[in-house]
């Protein structure tokens, strides 16, 4: 690995000053499970690495009834699923963080880092989109908030400007009649990158028979994780049934624009979108009824 400087600021404004003062050779370190590999393999370069794990705002993980989930940008996958209240309140997010790498990776890798690495196949991003999560960004020009579905712009690229830092993600509070799920397809049981992935979030009516609101998001089938707007809109008012899930899967396929690569063909990935959308909707509805 080439040489770089290292800084571990303890205050957010100190981190912003460091990031603003340094050039474009500054890289942010949270869990390091992507950036350290990229620096070692020469895929990215760095003059300065800024470790953000000592800044309290970025390590906060807090669930509250009226505000929902506050997820500091450097919080590890493990802390999310180890908290039984959080895992039960946001099962679609818990599904994803339990399958990102093995235990060693989950001890360090953060959901904020998964978002900022902006891989099209990121497992944590579809659940964030399905939950209508908001990205809270701080930079030299102040703070701004962005819906997660607008965050990624291309493989490995996102809306963060020079000197900006993702501080936290917030997920809205969940009513008791809401449920969610994330599933990906991989050819083995563990430790692999998604061939395709889908997250579904639903809110049912009082009877539990009709869908009031739904949000579906997909991974590994486009240059960025995508929000399946049409499928989500169409689900409003539909009766919970296998036929409805299957039709939503067909609609979700229309936003998929996958590539052929060593993990799968475009045709296969598109097929998987239908299957995974249907299955995650079924699980989300089942969870919403509990």
């Amino acid at each position, binding site marked *: *690995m*080439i*040489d*770089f*400087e*290292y800084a*571990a600021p303890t205050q957010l404004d100190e981190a912003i000053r460091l990031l603003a003062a340094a050039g474009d050779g500054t890289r942010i*370190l949270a*869990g*390091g*499970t992507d950036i*350290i*590999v990229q*620096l*070692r*393999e020469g895929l990215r370069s760095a003059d300065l*690495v800024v*470790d953000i*794990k000592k800044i309290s705002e970025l390590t906060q993980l807090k669930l509250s009834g009226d505000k929902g989930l506050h997820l500091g940008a450097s919080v590890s996958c*493990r802390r999310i699923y180890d908290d039984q209240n959080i895992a039960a309140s946001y099962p679609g997010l818990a599904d994803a963080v339990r399958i990102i*790498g*093995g*235990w*060693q*990776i989950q*001890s*360090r890798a953060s959901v904020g880092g998964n978002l900022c690495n902006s891989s099209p196949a990121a497992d944590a991003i579809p659940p964030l989109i399905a939950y209508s999560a908001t990205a809270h960004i701080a930079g030299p020009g102040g703070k701004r908030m962005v819906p997660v579905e607008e965050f990624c712009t291309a493989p490995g690229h996102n809306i963060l400007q020079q000197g900006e830092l993702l501080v936290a993600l917030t997920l809205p509070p969940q009513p008791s009649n809401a449920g969610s799920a994330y599933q990906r397809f991989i050819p083995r*049981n*563990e*430790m692999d990158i998604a061939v395709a992935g889908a997250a579904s979030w639903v809110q049912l009516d009082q009877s539990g028979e009709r869908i009031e609101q739904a949000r579906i998001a997909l991974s590994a089938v486009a240059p960025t994780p995508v929000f399946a707007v049409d499928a989500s809109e169409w689900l409003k008012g539909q009766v919970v049934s296998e036929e409805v899930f299957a039709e939503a899967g067909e609609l979700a396929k229309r936003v998929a624009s996958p590539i052929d690569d060593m993990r799968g063909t475009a045709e296969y990935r598109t097929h998987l979108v239908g299957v995974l959308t249907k299955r995650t909707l079924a699980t989300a509805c089942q969870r919403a009824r509990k």
Partner: protein
Amino acid sequence: MKTHVTTTINGATVEFLCQPRQSLLAVLRDELSLTGCKEGCNNGNCGACTVMLDGLPVDSCLVLAVEAEGAEIETVEGIAEQGHLHPLQQCFLEGAALQCGICTPGFLVTAKALLEKNPQPSEQEIRFGLAGNLCRCTGYDKIVRAVQAASQASPES
């Protein structure tokens, strides 16, 4: 410029100097002569370099040594106590749960963490718990059986 780091390794305070680019794995092996942890893939896939960092198993190839400032580290060298093998080490030995041995230290560190969290894991829990450790001699069945044997041998069971 080298950075001064103070950390705790296997219960003892250890100080070292390192470059920011050096991984914890590189410092443990090359500077501190703790060569139990192995470099397999050096990109977080194989788990041969697993150590405990503040109570959690991590791939030490994906940790910068400078991040270890103030941290508690446990390596495979700290598993045996006062010359007595840990039940896991004894069961790996008796069950021949290794072939070339490169992956073994990583498996031992992760398996110990697994049994501390879940003293009586099912076979599936063992396989998922050890998913971040690869054995390319494909000796998984014997490894799983050794962990099962150790879970029955451990005093808390």
